[in-house]
């Protein structure tokens, strides 16, 4: 009896010890490639991105009209503008006095005198314009803002918002679909999610920064524009100020155009991709379906994804097109 017990114990120990050393590669592959890593990709990459998109990620989508309509406040640049004006007024006085001396003492030729008189006239006019520059800047910004606001009335803002929303969520759905089996497969759409979320803000912030700088330089631009030798520099400053101001109107126009194109374009077949059937395992699939529907991540059609991407790209491309087209337009 005792002997039988000892034998059984020995055998059990051997099997257990041996079992502990068993290295099942198949189990590893199954867990790694088909269960654990896909779940981790879904829950640690795609799902947090989805949660982020519900909040900050779609901030531009929710506020695009307000963001595009935003202009840097003129009050904010007044201190800097006043400093520049304080520097410019003595320069003006010096220039006017120099022309006066030139007219009185130096110039003998009628042509020179005519040119000096013309320059004097220009300087006096620009002096008035410069002293009014804060009002003038405010006026130009208001015209641009009102024009942009009117352009937005050409279509429904809700439709534009839906198109932008479709683009960014569509990219995430596509990224999720592709990255669950292999993360590299979905890397491009995943990068595009961030491009769509950040780049419009970056472009609009860039506009605000450049516009602020150009608003400060505006009086200097007017002064330089009136002096023959420095006209080209003044012209560039004024032209850039006008172009960067009216970029908002063209951004609005681009979005309106995309919305109109979206409402009239039809595709012969408009396939959909849904991230609910990402997993080949039904149980996980249901779990994922519940999770993603709870964060509004459903399906996207080719039209929604295409036009959503076009809308985002349009915001990014508009400044480039504007700067390329609108140059050297001042006389």
């Amino acid at each position, binding site marked *: 009896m005792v002997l039988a017990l000892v034998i059984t114990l020995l055998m059990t120990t051997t099997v257990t010890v041996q079992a502990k050393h068993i290295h*099942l590669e198949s189990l590893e592959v199954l867990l790694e*490639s088909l269960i654990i890593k896909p779940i981790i990709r879904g829950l640690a990459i795609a799902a947090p991105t989805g949660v982020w998109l519900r909040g900050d990620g779609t901030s531009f989508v929710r506020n695009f009209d307000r963001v595009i309509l935003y202009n840097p406040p003129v009050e904010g640049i007044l201190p800097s503008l006043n400093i520049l004006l304080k520097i410019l007024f003595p320069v003006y006085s010096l220039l006017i006095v120099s022309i006066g001396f030139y007219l009185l003492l130096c110039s003998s030729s009628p042509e020179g005198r005519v040119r000096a008189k013309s320059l004097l006239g220009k300087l006096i006019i620009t002096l008035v314009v410069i002293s009014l520059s804060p009002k003038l800047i405010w006026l130009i910004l208001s015209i641009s803002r009102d024009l942009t606001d009117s*352009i937005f009335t050409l279509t429904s803002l809700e439709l534009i918002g839906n198109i932008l929303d479709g683009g960014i969520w569509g990219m995430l759905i*596509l990224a999720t679909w592709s990255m669950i089996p292999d993360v590299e497969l979905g890397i491009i759409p995943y990068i595009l999610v961030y491009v769509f979320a950040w780049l419009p803000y970056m472009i609009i912030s860039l506009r605000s920064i450049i516009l602020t700088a150009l608003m400060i330089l505006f009086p200097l631009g007017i002064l330089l524009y009136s002096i023959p030798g420095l006209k080209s520099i003044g012209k560039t400053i004024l032209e850039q100020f006008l172009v960067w101001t009216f970029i908002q109107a063209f951004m609005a*126009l681009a979005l309106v155009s995309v919305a109109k194109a979206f409402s009239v374009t*039809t595709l*012969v077949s408009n396939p959909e991709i849904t991230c609910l059937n990402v997993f080949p395992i039904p149980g996980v699939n249901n779990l994922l379906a519940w999770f993603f529907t709870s964060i509004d991540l459903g399906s996207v059609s*080719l039209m929604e994804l295409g036009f959503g991407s076009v809308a985002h790209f349009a915001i990014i491309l508009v400044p480039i097109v504007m700067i390329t087209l609108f140059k050297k337009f001042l006389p």
Partner: protein
Amino acid sequence: MDKKIKIFVLLTAILLLSTSVNAIGALVIGIIDVALAEGFKLLAKGWIVTSGWQVVGLFYEKIFDSFPLLLTTNPPLSEITPGIFFFIKIIAPFYILAILVLALYILIASSDVRRRAKAKSLLSNLIIGLVLISISPFVLGILFIISENLAKVLMSMGGTTGIDVLEGASSGLYNKFWKLTLIHRTGGIELFAIHATLLFGLTVLLLLRHAMVILFGMLLPLAFFLYSFYPTKRIGKDLFIQAFLWTFMPVAWTLALVIIGIGIGSMPSYIPEFYILIGALFFFIGSPMMILGVGDWLAFLVFLFEVLQAAPLSIGAVVIDETMK
């Protein structure tokens, strides 16, 4: 035999049996394990391949079905005219003001004959511009009719063959992707990235054209207005050219499809078909730049170089290279 010896023999036999059973079991388990592991690896690769197919084959490639429709139609004018009239309303007061000021200048201020002549020429330009602005929806309508008819004629000349070639190129890229993936799970990723990006780019370009036609169509009155004044003449001209180019881009595309359809049949048989198809796909994407001069040739060549140089550096190529060795 002694009882103790019997027990000892039995014990030894049991131990030997258990050891051999364990050894055989381990062998069997090992074989099953390897088979299962390879099976699961294949399943994982299959999953990558099917996901890839869902993205390119069942999603992006469906844009080819809409090619004839997208290339032979323009957005309806009824969608653009509100925008055109919006800009006419903004521009018209400036026009009237400019004409009034110029007329007053001719009548009262100018005594110089040259300046009067110049002012009169500008006045006539303004009047022509005003007429053009008021008929700008019709001008756009005529451009649309010409573009649509040309595209339809070209499409009927063998455009569908060209579309089949492009689909063939896409299928070829997918075939290379899944074969490379079966060799190594990340082997075809770069090829997939290029494939998906090309199809995505194509979709975006086709849809962008519709948006751009609407945008530059709405800006047509502004183009005529700016063209009327000497300092802004170039901008007006550029705006009109943009409206013209985006409207006639489908003509360039359908022409490219016809060229592809004709050219594909005359290619020497010793060139592998896949490379010809890929060449056709790149030609189609670059055709508006080549035919209409949209964008920059150099930029397109740089883009082409970037895409082509990425392919040999892909993991897939390295894997194949290593396997062949």
